């Protein structure tokens, strides 16, 4: 109880509240502009938060992370262009509703479902915390190594139809984190005699290049357009009443979001897809899905908004990020000398509770903001795309250069910008590179520290949790092999993978 109060106390500061407000409102606006995802915004703001207090910087970025999907629903519903990649399924049913003249109903339902999902995710996180606090200390070096390995395998396998590319890019990420001076043996690795490579390739520089600069280049190269969203008329609070008629769909979708959010490498997209399929299968009107079904809209929005809170579970308890945004959050924690992992729950539980309350507060702030300002947002998303590209390019500079005032970093970021553009054009995933970098670093450190206690390779899995994670790795691989063999036998044609547009996250 005193931990809860200490957590609340942490938030009761004007600078924390201001950061939360700026983060949440900024996140909604950023999410609403097609082409600028939360990843771009977090990457740009990351260095700016270095000078702030840990809790202030963290709540601001958490605000952006948790609120961007609310904003992303607006263009998905109104102009059939998802603001963030994870709102893709929202447009399936949201836009047909707009075409039928029910834009107000669709937007209102999307907000309500998002709120339901968001709060459900946080409640699960709070309820699971005592369990996590008990289990997390059981994770030693070998368990964390195996969990990170599971994360790498899952992020590769989650990209169905692009597994070879995802594998290649994840391995590239793992390689990138090895570049520079090895901290244990003091030997140079792949520096080619260049002094600026000795300090390694910075994660923030890679993130800014792959997400922000690539997006700027893409917007500047493609034909100019200006999304035209019509204003929405009517009260936006009415969606809650309709949502209550579909409580079951909303709750099951949120549960999918929580479960898949906790598993590294899977995230919003899979959660959304599974919830949508569930909603369609159990609906009385399955034929209306894709043609403006409120249940489809609810399933998609409730699922994706339950993910951020759930994704914080492996991040806070084990220090393992499940997707690109939590990977960036991890670097924020490190910069502020808050090391997520088993010790966090023992030593800094008040900070953990503070973050939970911040998540609840941001959902409330965003709902209030959206009820009053949706029409203002429809004007903001009309920014011409090329002009947006110019702005992202200028903002990316702040993110890269303020890290260590290095021109070499800017050149590396520009190089990754071109690589990111190529990957986006080819519809290949970017996330495996980022997760490869972060999880690769964790694997290297944890395997090294586990080594002295291992006499035979079997010692790696002689503890219960290590054995369970190892069992999960084997199971995941076997299940994947089974699916492959089934597909081979059934001569199934490859489905369209355009939906797997995870790179904008």
């Amino acid at each position: 109880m005193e931990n809860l109060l200490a957590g609340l106390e942490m938030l009761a500061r004007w600078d924390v509240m201001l950061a939360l407000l700026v983060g949440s409102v900024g996140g909604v606006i950023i999410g609403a502009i097609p082409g600028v995802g939360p990843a771009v915004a977090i990457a740009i703001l990351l260095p700016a938060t270095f000078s702030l207090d840990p809790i202030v910087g963290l709540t601001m970025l958490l605000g952006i992370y948790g609120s961007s999907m609310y904003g992303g629903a607006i263009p998905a519903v109104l102009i059939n262009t998802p603001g963030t990649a994870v709102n893709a399924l929202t447009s399936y049913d949201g836009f047909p509703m707009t075409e039928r003249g029910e834009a107000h109903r669709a937007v209102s339902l999307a907000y309500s479902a998002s709120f339901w999902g968001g709060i459900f995710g946080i409640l699960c996180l709070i309820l699971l915390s005592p369990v996590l606090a008990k289990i997390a200390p059981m994770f030693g070096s070998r368990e964390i190594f195996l969990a990170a390995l599971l994360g790498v395998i899952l992020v590769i396998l989650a990209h169905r139809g692009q597994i070879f590319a995802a594998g290649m890019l994840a391995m590239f990420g793992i390689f990138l984190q090895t570049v520079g001076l090895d901290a244990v043996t003091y030997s140079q690795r792949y520096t080619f005699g260049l002094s600026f490579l000795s300090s390694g390739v910075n994660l923030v520089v890679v993130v800014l290049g792959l997400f922000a600069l690539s997006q700027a280049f893409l917007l500047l190269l493609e034909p100019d357009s200006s999304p035209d969203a019509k204003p929405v008329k009517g009260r936006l609070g009415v969606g809650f009443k309709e949502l209550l008629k579909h409580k079951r769909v909303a709750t099951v979708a949120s549960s999918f979001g929580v479960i898949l959010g906790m598993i590294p490498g899977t995230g919003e997209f899979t959660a959304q897809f599974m919830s949508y399929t569930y909603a369609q299968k159990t609906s009385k009107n399955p034929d209306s899905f894709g043609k403006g079904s409120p249940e489809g809209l609810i399933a998609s929005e409730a699922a994706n908004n339950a993910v951020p809170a759930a994704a914080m579970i492996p991040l806070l308890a084990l220090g393992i990020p499940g997707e690109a945004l939590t990977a960036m959050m991890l670097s924020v924690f490190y910069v502020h000398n808050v090391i997520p992992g088993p010790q966090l729950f023992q030593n800094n539980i008040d900070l953990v509770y503070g973050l939970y309350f911040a998540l609840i507060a941001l959902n409330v702030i965003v709902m209030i903001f959206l009820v009053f300002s949706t029409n203002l947002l429809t004007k903001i998303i009309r920014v011409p795309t090329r002009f947006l590209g110019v702005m992202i390019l200028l903002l990316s500079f702040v993110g890269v250069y303020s890290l260590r005032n290095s021109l070499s970093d800017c050149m590396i970021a520009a190089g990754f910008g071109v690589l990111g553009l190529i990957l986006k054009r080819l519809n290949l995933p970017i996330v495996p590179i980022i997760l490869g970098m972060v999880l690769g670093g964790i694997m290297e450190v944890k395997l090294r520290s586990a080594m002295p206690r291992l006499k035979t390779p079997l010692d790696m899995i002689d503890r219960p949790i290590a054995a369970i994670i190892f069992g999960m790795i084997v199971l995941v691989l076997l299940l994947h092999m089974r699916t492959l063999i089934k597909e081979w036998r059934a001569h199934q044609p490859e489905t369209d993978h355009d939906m797997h547009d995870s790179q904008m996250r």
Partner: protein
Amino acid sequence: MSRIKTLQALFKRYRRPGDIVFAWLALIVSVLLLSQLADQTAWRSGGKLFAQPRFWPAVSLGGMTVFAALHLLGSALSERLHGRWHEVGLWAASFEYAVWFIAYASVVPYAGYLPATMIFAVALTVRAGYRRPWAILAAIGSAISVVLLFKPLLRVNLPSGLIYDSLPEGLRQIMLTYF
């Protein structure tokens, strides 16, 4: 025959034009990097395999090469898509904006953050095809807002311009501190 077809189907993927060019480039880069393994990493005698500084570069580059080869195989076995060189041309065109970015970063320590941002915002806006006065004004306004947000407000670590030294004393102090 049908067996070959199914094997092909297994390796086929959803692709876009230019995929095979990227697949070749990725394989070449992977092989080149892997070939430098002995040269660019060290091997400590007596140390365990998993603790060697060479271990993770070898694992990652080995994996990268295998996956890149499979990716290329998948691309080669899928039907040909037209427009690959047009796509490669677009990738090459993006280098122009990479140069813009590096040029902007090189100019800031000399011209100062505010002047450099304003100049580049206007120049890039014109380059992007906007000619109307409102667009230029919007670029200037946005540039000033960005600078105000990051330099005086968030106190982000950015160098002050060398050019500021030639300003009169009072103005010089203001520019050095805030812009």
